[in-house]
């Protein structure tokens, strides 16, 4: 699984950082920054939740070959 962030539509509400600060961070201007594109285990679960919660549609999940 891979996360993609579309920084053009991010509105900086910080929902993702709140959900998992080990995967998501914000630049000083508020725009999302991925700490990792490939979260694993519980972090992967939380990243899925963050994608669901993101209000702007900036985050997406891409399932990759080899994902179980």
């Amino acid at each position: 699984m891979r996360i993609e962030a579309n920084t053009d539509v991010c509105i900086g509400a910080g929902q993702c950082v709140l959900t998992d600060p080990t995967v998501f961070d914000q630049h000083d201007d508020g725009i999302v920054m991925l700490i990792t594109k490939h979260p694993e285990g519980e972090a992967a679960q939380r990243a899925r939740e963050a994608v669901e919660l993101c209000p702007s549609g900036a985050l997406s999940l891409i399932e990759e070959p080899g994902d179980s």
Partner: protein
Amino acid sequence: MPASGDLADVEFPVARGCPFSTPAEYEQIREHSPITKVRLTNGGDAWWIAGHELGRAVLADRRFSSDRRRDNFPFVSTDPETRKQLQDQPTSMLGMDGAEHAQARRALMGEFTVRRMAGLRPRIQQIVDQHIDEMLSSEQRSADLVEALSLPVPSLVICELLGVPYADHDFFQAHSGPLVRHNTPPEVRARIQRELNTYLGALIDRKVTDPTDDLLGRQIAKQRAAGTFDRTSLVSMAFLLLIAGHETTANMISLGVVGLLQNPDQLAMIKEDPEKTPPAVEELLRYFTIADTVTARVATEDVQLGGTTINAGDGVVISGLAADHDPTVFTDPDRIDLERGARHHVAFGFGPHQCIGQTLARMELQIVFDTLFRRIPTLRLAAPLDDIPFKSDAFVYGAEKLPVAW
């Protein structure tokens, strides 16, 4: 479209029940359809969106406009003052669409990052502690929580955020309070609004000559560096932050306290384990969804929603309260259950306008609930629930007074 026999006679807004259950009419509508035409007491009609999924979809859909000046923009609240305030303000980001909105929001977004808000935590804790000290020092062991805590805390937090100097805190509080209180006469409200705007203008001038490292100071520096300094728009932005961040947070403090006191088993959980407070805040935000009908829009083109056509120019109300009590998404929605996992509520809206101050609001609420119940564990309501005046026709739901004792 006949919206079911009973509903044809209903006008919106309708008051919340006993005292905060979702109005019965909301349930009727939901059972009828997640999208229904309703009549507004203010005149005209609007589409009422009652489901969580559909509500989020509409709020994220760029074909709907937030521009409060458009004909048919549905103002559900019957409170004409707030409506006028919102309509007369120079357009703020709240009423902008598309690229214009993105530009205004991006200019401010960096001020509300999770990291920056965490930096405010110690100061917010201090503000809360000072007000609880004052409550505890009173002989009578009772207070109106609205005046003692709910109103002053968010007002002082906004002072902190904007960079209002300490010496002006009293002036700022004395002026922001009446804007929030329900019974302020319109002429007083208008005068106070003028005085606040004058004050904010002068504050900005001071920060131009004497730069400060706070929200306003940094906005000024950024604009001046880019050659785009615009005093008028900075005043209106500061005013928007006050309007959007003060009453909302104040009302959630009061209602949250009532919600917790009414559910002692839930309250016991957060008293025991402060880790439970963040999820409790989410659940209380969901349960009360105080800005129920703030999330309104106008269709800019014909839009198909489910089987229904919304015509260009139609008003749409995305009822946050209905979405957050959608039983297909939140089981047994009229119960406060802080362990349900409520973060997908729409109490802060959804889509590009989702509340810019949400991280700050969450932190304020967490600090207040944690500190209040730790320091005054015997806190209780000092009046029967039915006697507490709730603001059922206001733009954001809340309590006008909250007698408590300990």
